[in-house]
């Protein structure tokens, strides 16, 4: 009995200490101390109370919602979701439209990383490399060779896909943590190369003067027309990735994630399908890069740091590894929430971080991940 009391004391103490230390730099010692005492006392009471109140509280403790089940069965209903997206430019001012365009670009990025991490199970910590290569090849083709949007876009997609293939080829035989480290290295190599190759990329000064996209002679420079362009590509990405996912290619990717040995015993070429996955992901990341460059009309290596890779990975994990709908929601949350929380300035990253920690404690498979997505 006494050992369980010690255990409860220790647990409550450590949790409240952790929360108080997190709070300390923002509100000072006094507030942190009060928080510690309040948390400690309430945790001391909650645990035994929950235990005494029996099975009722134990089941109510963690709310389990199967969001997938709430979604309409027939995927054609999902088209209805596009309608409000189409209407956004009619009702909102430029600032919100700007955020919406950025959200679209991140949705494409997160969908791309989801192919690699969520479907195929290859942890990638340097995914921003493909985003950067897409953006830079588009910007260079446009500013140096004067190619327009619709000719520079496919060419830079070819370049990015090829880069995905070439980067992955030597690393793909590595597994788990080792692969993650190598991808992290690749991400940094790309950024540092862009930063230092002054004669070609103009280094930290970045590339400016990128032309706005045209569509049959109509300029797409206004925010609302650019928004529709991004929306088009988001819808395209969702459709294509969904279809590939539900085919022999998608099944091979998931089989590789679940059990590589069994997959090869079923005739799946491991290396080929892993390369396929990374190249396919790089293709969409490159598309996001092109859109980013065309929107900003200026790019520099600063936009492609390691933190971007982490942000994209957070979107995928937050929404639920392997779930397309979840990844979209994850991207929306992680772009919109920091913007919405601008009013509380310095707490916003704290709130966001705490939110992610809580999510990982209570719903480790992510918002939309089914039980099957969480791997043991």
């Amino acid at each position, binding site marked *: 009995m006494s050992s369980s009391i010690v255990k409860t004391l220790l647990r409550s103490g450590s949790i409240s200490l952790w929360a108080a230390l997190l709070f300390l730099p923002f509100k000072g010692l006094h507030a942190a101390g009060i928080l510690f005492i309040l948390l400690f006392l309430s945790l001391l009471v909650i645990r035994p109370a929950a235990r005494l109140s029996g099975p009722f509280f134990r089941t109510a403790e963690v709310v389990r919602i199967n969001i997938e089940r709430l979604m309409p069965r027939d995927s054609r209903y999902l088209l209805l979701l596009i309608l409000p997206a189409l209407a956004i430019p009619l009702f909102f001012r430029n600032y919100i439209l700007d955020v919406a365009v950025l959200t679209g670009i991140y949705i494409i990025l997160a969908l791309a990383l989801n192919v690699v991490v969520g479907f195929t199970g290859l942890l990638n910590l340097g995914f921003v490399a493909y985003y950067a290569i897409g953006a830079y090849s588009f910007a260079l083709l446009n500013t140096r060779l004067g190619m327009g949007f619709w000719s520079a876009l496919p060419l830079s997609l070819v370049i990015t896909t090829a880069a995905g293939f070439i980067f992955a080829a030597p690393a793909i035989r590595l597994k788990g943590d080792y692969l993650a480290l190598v991808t992290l290295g690749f991400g940094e190599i790309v950024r540092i190369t862009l930063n230092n190759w002054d004669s070609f990329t103009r280094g930290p000064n970045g590339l400016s003067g990128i032309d706005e996209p045209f569509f049959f002679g109509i300029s797409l420079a206004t925010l609302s027309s650019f928004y529709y362009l991004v929306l088009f590509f988001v819808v395209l990405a969702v459709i294509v990735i969904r279809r590939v996912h539900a085919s022999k290619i998608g099944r091979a990717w998931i089989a590789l994630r679940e059990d590589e*040995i069994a997959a090869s*015993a079923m005739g799946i070429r491991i290396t080929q399908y892993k390369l396929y996955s990374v190249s396919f992901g790089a293709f969409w990341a490159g598309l996001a890069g092109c859109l980013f460059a065309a929107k900003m009309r200026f790019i520099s290596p600063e936009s492609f740091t390691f933190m971007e890779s982490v942000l994209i990975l957070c979107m995928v994990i937050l929404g639920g590894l392997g779930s397309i709908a979840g990844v979209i929601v994850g991207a929306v949350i992680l772009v919109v929430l920091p913007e919405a929380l601008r009013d509380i300035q310095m707490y916003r990253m704290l709130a966001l971080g705490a939110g992610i920690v809580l999510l990982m404690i209570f719903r480790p498979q992510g918002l939309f991940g089914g039980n099957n997505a969480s791997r043991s």
Partner: protein
Amino acid sequence: MLLEVRAVSKRFGGIRAIEDITFSLKQGLILSIIGPNGAGKTTLFNCLTGFMKLTRGNIIFSGTHISSLTADRINRLGISRTFQNIRLFKGMSVIENVMVAQHAKIRSGLMPIIAHTPAFLNEEASVRQTAYEYLEFLGLESFAEQNAGNLPYGAQRRLEIARALASEPQLILLDEPSAGMNPLETDEMMATIRKMREMGKTIILIEHDMKFVMGISDRIIVLDHGVKIAEGSPQEVKNNPLVIEAYLGKETH
């Protein structure tokens, strides 16, 4: 001969896992490999299916040397297997597990998949149909949409066999198909394996249940410490003094 194994050896450093194994197998027969724990049975399976490279020797499968090929190549040539410690794709549904096994047969490439051409949709429907038929063959059709990881143990073993069958092999290797099953399930498994032979499959199995082995095998190979100590019909093997010694120990007076 469908399969010829010639003087196959596998060493791990200085340890001889299997040494100088030679046998051959005709189409349509059931061969059992038996032996005490650590005799090298699973190592032999791993060598046959490309998961381990041979130290010496040759394996010829319907005229092709397969000893240097990768596991996925060997599967596409027509050898499929199950695993002693069940290896299902746990996060996929039961029917998807069987659909994965038909991977190599599917012709549609990336463009038809993206465009959802009628040819692709037809092919996908027939893949699903075939998968369903294999599930019915193993009595798993009621589980089709469930998560493979949630199946009861016996059903998981049967799903592994359904998956192995779905890659349409000529030769199928079963590693302890009745392990952990109750007597009723074991009898069903024997009936299933007989039906597989009637379908024209050649079968090699590793098994510890002697009633199972004696009841179903056309031929039996006995391994002990990596060496083949006997080969023959169930009757011959049962009366072989070397086999009795390997299992029960030497008689001392």
